[in-house]
């Protein structure tokens, strides 16, 4: 049996794992609260994704560095303190960069601390792997999360406001479908994406099954 103390070798999949195979949103359904709340425009989605990636990478680094120092019994409490630290730092950073952005993201910046993705990664990966692996994996997860946020933000902004990243796309005669930048829209767009991915997966499965039948024949 593989000795769990030997960490995974650093490979490309350590990075891509978080983007497609184990995408935190579409596969693991984690981090939904900020997903629906701040994706009413693509800019907010991008900013939230970057902020979460920052917290993921920094907390992953620290957790990995301290993995031999933190006793098992208090590890969750320790991880949460570390995560909360970086979330507070990113909160101040955003305020210093752009007050408008901070107002748009609101309390959801601080709510990054309860984003299950970060705690889950710290527990499942960063605490058991060397620093470089942890950083790469956290970065991949962050990218996956940001892509998920963007996929919702872009759709919601285009349909709901007729613009993308603030740039008006369709001109004055476009009647935006306002419900998409409102709460129900968030639910519907996420449901739509999950449906699309589920469809893709089912199609792949049927094709694999057909190939198997063809080979057996």
């Amino acid at each position, binding site marked *: 049996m593989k000795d769990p103390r030997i960490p995974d070798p650093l490979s490309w999949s350590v990075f891509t794992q978080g983007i497609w195979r184990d995408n935190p949103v579409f596969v693991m*359904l984690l981090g*939904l609260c900020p997903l629906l709340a701040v994706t009413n425009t693509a800019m907010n989605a991008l900013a939230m994704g970057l902020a979460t990636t920052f917290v993921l990478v920094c907390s992953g680094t620290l957790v990995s560095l301290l993995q031999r120092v933190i006793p098992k019994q208090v590890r969750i409490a320790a991880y949460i303190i570390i995560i909360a630290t970086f979330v507070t730092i990113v909160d101040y950073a955003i305020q210093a960069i752009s007050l408008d952005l901070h107002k748009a993201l609101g309390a959801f910046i601080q709510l990054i601390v309860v984003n299950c993705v970060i705690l889950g990664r710290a527990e499942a990966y960063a605490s058991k792997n060397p620093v470089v692996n942890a950083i790469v994996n956290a970065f991949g997860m962050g990218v996956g999360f940001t892509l998920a946020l963007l996929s919702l933000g872009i759709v919601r902004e285009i349909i709901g406001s007729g613009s993308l990243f603030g740039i008006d796309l369709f001109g004055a005669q476009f009647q935006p479908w306002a419900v998409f930048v409102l709460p129900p829209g968030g639910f519907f767009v996420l449901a739509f994406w999950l449906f699309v991915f*589920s469809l893709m997966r089912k199609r792949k499965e049927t094709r694999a099954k057909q190939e198997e039948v063809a080979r057996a024949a």
Partner: protein
Amino acid sequence: MQPDSLTFIFLNAFVINNFVLAMFLGLCPFLGVSGKIKTAANMGLAVVFVMLVSSSSAYGINLLLAKFNLEFLRLICYIAVIASAVQLVEMAIKKFSPALFRALGIFLPLITTNCAILGLALFQTNREYNFPQSLAFSVGAGAGFTLALVLMAGLREKLELADVPDVVTSAALALTLGGLLSLAFMGFAGLGG
């Protein structure tokens, strides 16, 4: 109705800006525990209790931190308090109702990472509510959370008998339901004058 009256604050958190359906807080249990009405109702009750405890503690901590100009420690302290409150509730439920404890399973300790609780503490701090207002806010938020959960559970129980195509995953379906509920709740906007 006055915007800072206790009734309005309660109504606002309960239906007008429902924590789950309008503010997107507490979605993990919303999707995860809403399979059966009874479990949903019990989860809601646990959340109401945790919210009350966290809200009062958050108010107290905020006063303390403001006094010593340590506001930047706010987030860390809130999280610590919430984790302790959840631990307390978990022990209480385990002692008084082991069946409920088993039914709630992993979702009980997950209340710690429930955005709704931390969101409650953060919102009440941002809006600078005093103590009675904070209490009204937490009762309203908890009641609203329970309402959304129970409604969702009722809908999903009925859906189990329906013929839904395979390709629609349960999550996509639950989210669509959530969207429809959210749409319905938008009708409460402007309530109270």
